């Protein structure tokens, strides 16, 4: 501390603190300057702010000692702990320095004094150059900056925030969002501890030598006792003075992570990403969910914050974000999306069927001929006990027990005109609703009911006019042919929910111009060989024509037969004989056809019933002449049915109150059955027994067994008062029968206590027929 010139080199102490006490150690020559300097620096320091954005905050005074050696490098011993975390927010002004490269290098590398030599040296030089008078601001600024560097030197890099004065927030945002390349490199292997093992394998090369040494040592140990060569002696070792040292580190942040590795979780992680890609493309609107699916497929790690006990539940793949207390609300469209989705409809369908299965379970079990098991949980009251006793006491005569009713609001008040089972799915029933009265022009309805849901039809088709007949196709079970009172024939495709009719015959030029009374799918030989069979739709209508329809793009028909009146044929013959000239184009009115049926074996032969009671037997290959004509009925023939078991026998019923049993070759019926003086609307052979058939009068349903009696039906079931029965259908695989009436209800009855005998009674029928033939 001698000359001012030496001040530069020998400057060992520079205090940046406002305390004057240290000034005393410096030579008195500079004391005033120091103090002034320091005062000035203090003032300016106060003006400059180190923490925070504004420059007006007062710096907390800190006590730092800097030691510079001859060259001006800073060799101050650095303290171990820095109890001032507030300084981490120090900002460095980049203006004075060479550029961000310095700063960045400072940030990312472990701080060494060497890296800071440049600024320090610069500042030192600056400070040395500046004259005393102008020391005040610049030097202090440099001091400040240097100090901050010096301070920041010892902090971990993350505490330093680099920012430019002008642009403050933007930089941080940008820096946060920009892609930072982090290069991970591997250091050399640092061996902290190496404890080589002391055991050697027996197979090692130097095992022998080691064994030798071991033996020698053992001998040595043995000889040690009492041996003069060895002497015990104690020694004292230095015990170093222990010193406790404190180390402070950052608080260790603990995070709980749980990981679930169930089988499905792993499966989802492997295959879920692929599947979800396709899902994402297919359903772009469900963006919220798909995002989280992708999240979950990235890795099995999910933070289960609260539920530790039910850990399986919390990381299910179906729920992506498991936050128990607060639910993340997505946009409001999601509930609506759910409610409008197809999946929701399907689930509701299944749910409805489940509920109805619960309600109708005993009835359906009876239908399927399963034993009805009583519900053990049901509460048994004394009233139910009485009912059960009454049931047991009832007579064991054959009866019909009502199981359930197919009806809904849509069908209330409508007359059921026809019913048909689906050929492939025996649980599917199509019912046509339409009035028989021509004057009643209410629009008709076709409902497809499923046994699984008796309260609402699966499909509902509204038609322009009343429906008179239905038939499901056998080859394409989804096709439903519908005949209507205005002569139109329509084919509906039942598999889709689309309500529009598939094809209609309204555009066909040769369509029926009067009511189509019956439609039927039948297989017809198309080619010359017998193998080529195609299914075609046949229809008979009140305009007296039987047409065969083809379905290409639209329905087109070919006339199979015209039902000419018998009298007119005779007239024709007479006129032909009498006067050939007069034979001209006489418009003959045709016999309105009511019903027809195709032979079960040879489908080219069919019977057609007409309005004047005549039954024509025709062949589809001959469209000019009838094979046979049976005219024993006095009223319109409402139904003709071939017997499914005996190909020669058929039944016909008509509005003249009679049911007649015929044999193919004979022109007079074998049997004529009448029980009441009411019009018979419908008959059907039982699919199970050859001698059993059912018939419907207006108010009664009768089941006949020819074996039992040909005079009286076995079962007579009265309809509810005011209700007329209109349609009959036997269930195909069970002993149930369906009856449709004019109030829109289809009631399913089970035939009880009906003993017929073994087998399907074909032989019995044969015998009855032969005996009847013999009687004629």
């Amino acid at each position, binding site marked *: 501390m001698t000359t001012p010139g030496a001040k530069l080199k020998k400057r060992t102490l520079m205090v940046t603190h406002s305390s004057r006490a240290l000034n005393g150690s410096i030579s008195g020559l500079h004391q005033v300057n120091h103090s002034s300097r320091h005062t000035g620096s203090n003032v300016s320091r106060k003006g400059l702010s180190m923490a925070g954005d504004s420059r007006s905050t007062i710096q907390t005074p800190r006590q730092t000692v800097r030691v510079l050696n001859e060259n001006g490098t800073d060799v101050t011993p650095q303290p171990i702990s820095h109890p001032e975390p507030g300084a981490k927010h120090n900002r460095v002004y980049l203006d004075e320095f060479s550029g961000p490269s310095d700063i960045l290098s400072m940030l990312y590398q472990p701080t060494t004094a060497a890296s800071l030599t440049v600024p320090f040296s610069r500042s030192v030089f600056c400070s040395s150059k500046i004259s005393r008078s102008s020391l005040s601001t610049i030097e202090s600024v440099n001091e400040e900056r240097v100090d901050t560097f010096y301070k920041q030197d010892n902090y971990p890099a993350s505490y330093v925030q680099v920012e430019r004065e002008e642009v403050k927030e933007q930089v941080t945002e940008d820096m946060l969002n920009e892609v930072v390349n982090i290069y991970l490199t591997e250091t050399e292997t640092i061996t902290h501890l190496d404890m080589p093992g002391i055991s050697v394998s027996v197979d090692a090369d130097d095992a022998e030598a080691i064994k030798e040494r071991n033996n020698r040592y053992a001998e040595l140990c043995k000889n040690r006792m009492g041996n003069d060569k060895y002497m015990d002696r104690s020694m004292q070792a230095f015990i170093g003075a222990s010193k406790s040292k404190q180390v402070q580190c950052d608080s260790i942040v603990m995070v709980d992570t749980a990981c679930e590795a*169930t*089988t*499905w979780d*792993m*499966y*989802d992680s492997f295959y879920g990403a692929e599947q979800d890609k396709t899902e994402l493309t297919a359903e772009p609107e*469900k963006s919220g*969910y798909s995002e989280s699916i992708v999240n979950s497929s990235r890795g099995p790690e999910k933070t289960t914050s609260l539920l530790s006990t*039910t850990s*399986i*539940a919390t990381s*299910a793949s*179906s*729920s992506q*974000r498991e936050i128990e*207390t*607060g*639910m*993340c*609300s997505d946009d*409001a469209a*999601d*509930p*609506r999306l*759910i*409610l*409008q*989705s197809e*999946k*929701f*409809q399907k*689930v*509701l*369908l*299944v*749910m*409805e069927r*489940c*509920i*109805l299965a*619960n*309600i109708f379970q005993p009835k359906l079990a009876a239908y399927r001929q399963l034993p009805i098991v009583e*519900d053990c*949980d*049901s*509460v048994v009251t004394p009233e139910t006990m009485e009912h059960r006793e009454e049931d047991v006491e009832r007579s064991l005569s054959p009866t019909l027990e009502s199981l359930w009713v197919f009806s809904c609001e849509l069908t209330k008040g409508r007359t059921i005109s026809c019913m048909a089972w689906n050929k492939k799915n025996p649980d599917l029933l199509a019912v046509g609703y339409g009035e028989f009265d021509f004057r009643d022009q209410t629009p008709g309805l076709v409902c497809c009911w499923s046994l699984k849901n008796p*309260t*609402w039809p699966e499909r509902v088709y509204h038609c322009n006019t009343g429906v008179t007949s239905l038939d499901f196709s056998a080859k394409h079970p989804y096709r439903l042919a519908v005949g209507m009172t205005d002569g139109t024939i329509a084919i509906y495709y039942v598999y889709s929910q689309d309500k529009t009719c598939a094809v209609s015959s309204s555009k066909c030029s040769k369509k029926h111009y009067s009511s189509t009374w019956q439609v039927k799918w039948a297989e017809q030989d198309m080619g010359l060989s017998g193998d080529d069979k195609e299914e075609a739709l046949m229809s008979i209508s009140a305009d007296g024509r039987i047409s065969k329809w083809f379905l290409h793009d639209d329905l087109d028909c070919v006339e199979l037969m015209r039902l000419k009146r018998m009298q007119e044929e005779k007239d024709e013959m007479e006129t032909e004989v009498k006067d050939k000239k007069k034979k001209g184009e006489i418009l003959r009115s045709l016999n309105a056809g009511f019903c027809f049926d195709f032979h079960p074996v040879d489908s080219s032969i069919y019977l057609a019933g007409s309005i004047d009671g005549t039954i024509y037997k025709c062949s589809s290959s001959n469209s000019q002449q009838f094979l046979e004509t049976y005219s024993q009925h006095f009223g319109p023939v409402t139904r003709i049915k071939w017997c499914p078991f005996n190909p020669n026998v058929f039944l016909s019923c008509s509005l003249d109150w009679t049911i007649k049993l015929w044999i193919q070759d004979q022109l007079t019926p074998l049997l004529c059955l009448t029980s009441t003086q009411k019009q018979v609307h419908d008959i059907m052979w039982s699919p199970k027994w050859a001698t059993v058939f059912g018939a419907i009068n207006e108010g009664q349903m009768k089941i006949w067994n020819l074996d039992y009696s040909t005079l009286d039906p076995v079962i007579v079931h009265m309809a509810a008062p005011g209700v007329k029965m209109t349609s009959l259908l036997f269930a195909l695989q069970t002993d149930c029968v369906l009856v449709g009436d004019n109030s829109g209800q289809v009631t399913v009855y089970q035939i009880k206590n009906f003993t017929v005998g073994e087998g399907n009674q074909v032989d019995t029928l044969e015998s009855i027929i032969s005996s009847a033939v013999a009687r004629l």
Partner: protein
Amino acid sequence: MTATLHFRSGKKRQFRFSWQQRDALNRRRNNPTIPKMASEVEETLKRIEGQRGVVGTVVCNADGIPIRSSLDGVATAQYARLLRKLTVMAKSAVRDIDPQNDLTFLRLRSQKCEIMVGLENEFLVIVIQNLHQ
């Protein structure tokens, strides 16, 4: 009382308690400007609710928040919460056995009633039916 959750990816979500969510849903539901679900679905749901013995129906989304319910608030929340846990466990069990399989329907029959749960990835349909009169 609301708070906003800021995610690292930049998304912001409103933090809501379950009762707030329910209120918001009710407000949305009663708001006439919001279109209702398809009429067919509405009809089917009404039919289900009108079937014999059905106590109520609850439709909730994948997180277990009820979207639509015919029961009162307390019962709805209870059913949704409890059945969601159960269905998640059941689904986990089914998929553990065969990961390609998935749970579609769950029926719980008890002495007094039957609880039926129809499942999909996005929602849950719960129907409670009393078995005996």
